[in-house]
Every structure is written in C-alpha cells, then in structure tokens.
C-alpha cells in the first residue's frame, strides 16, 4: 500500500522492510485500536463516566 502523503521515502522504507507495518500498527495500536477522540457516549470529547466528582 502506498502512503499518499507526498514523501516517497515512506513508501521506499516499506518496500525495503515490510515488517514496519506490523511494528507501526503495534506502536500506535494502544492509542488507536477501537478508540475515538469522541466516545459514542459523549458529545464533548470525553466520556462523562470517567470523570471524578
């Protein structure tokens, strides 16, 4: 897959080392996997259930 960001080196890096996909996915997984900057429960960018009184 190519990255359409205008930096050819990024795609070159992938061609030379396909393993970076897994490394990259794992690196960002904790933040991204199933997460959104707005939760389904909130209109304000945070989940009210996580707030302390």
């Amino acid at each position, binding site marked *: *897959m190519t*990255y359409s*960001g205008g930096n050819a080196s*990024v795609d070159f890096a992938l061609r030379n080392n396909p393993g970076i996909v897994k490394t*990259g*996915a794992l690196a*960002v997984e904790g933040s991204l996997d199933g997460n959104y900057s707005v939760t389904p429960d909130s*209109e304000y960018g945070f989940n009210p259930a996580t707030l302390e009184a």
Partner: protein
Amino acid sequence: MNSETENSSGYKLQGAFGDKGTQVNSIGYGHPHAEDIIKEAKEIIAESSTGKLLIKVHNVHNIPIQVIKGTGDSGFNTDSRIIYLQAPGKTKRAEPKLVLQLIKALREADQDIMGVKAPNPEEDLMAYATVIHGKNLDSIIHICKVVKELTNSSSFSILLEGIADLGYSKFYKAYINDATKDELFDVYAET
C-alpha cells in the same frame, strides 16, 4: 464553502482575511460544488455507525473541510488541521472515491486529536515511516469498516467501485473475510 464577512463599511472581506481561512475557497482553486460534495459525502458516511462516530468527531472538534479543484491527493493536513479533498472542477457530486477519501481523512484527523503523531522524519526516517504506515493502515481499516457497514445500503455498489479505484480491493476482501491482523499487515505491505 465560499464565505464572506462584511465589515462596518459594508465591504465584504473574503478568503483568509474574512474568516481566518478555515471556511473558504480563499484562493482560486476552490471548488464550485464544494458544499454539495461535502454534504452528500457526509450523508453517505453517516449512514454507518462507524461513519456516524467519525462525523461526530468532526463536528465536536470543528475540523474544516476544503474541496479544491485538482487531481492530487486528499487527506488531513496535520499542520493546518484542515481536511483537503481534491476533485476535478467538473465534479458535481460526492463520487465514491471522494467519500472514501473523506472517511480516511476524518480518521486521520481523529488520530491527530488523540495525540498520535509521527516523529520528525529528519531525525529518524524509519521510525517516521513505521508510524505513518501504522496510522495509514488504521485509516484504511476505517474505510473498510464503513463500507462493510453499508453493505445493505444503496451506496454500497458504488463505494466498492471507489475501493477498487483507490487500489484497496485486495485489502477490503481480506478485511471482510475476517483476516487476522498479521494477514492484514501482509496484504497492506504487498499491495
């Protein structure tokens, strides 16, 4: 997207001077059908639950979308924090490719808001490429999620054309066949 701001003398300020450049076709590249394209694309995306969430992210964080005349890449610009879509000037509707590119850009914006940033490429290109591809993979998975959720909608067949247009057919096929993460990594790297 064409916006004007009227000052006290009645003179209308346009472009970047009128509204900080966030809602305008401030330069001649602005697309004449931008509003229709954005509206239609968002309506299609919002038919899916994942798409609805991405639209909510967009609305809450007030991320500007600009459609410009051109044939180049679309996406979220992390410096300006604006989503740019490019479409030829004759385009009047949200073509499938544009809808999918908007899904991807919405997710890219979401990633940025969550604080997932790429390191400086000048310091470590491989680290930069690694994160960029990790983020790109996540965005493409979101395209697949939305399209899969729209399987029974009237937009589905044209969205599949868009998937093919963008070169994601093999990846989408793996996704809907419940490929493991490792299999998706391989397909991403190979295609």
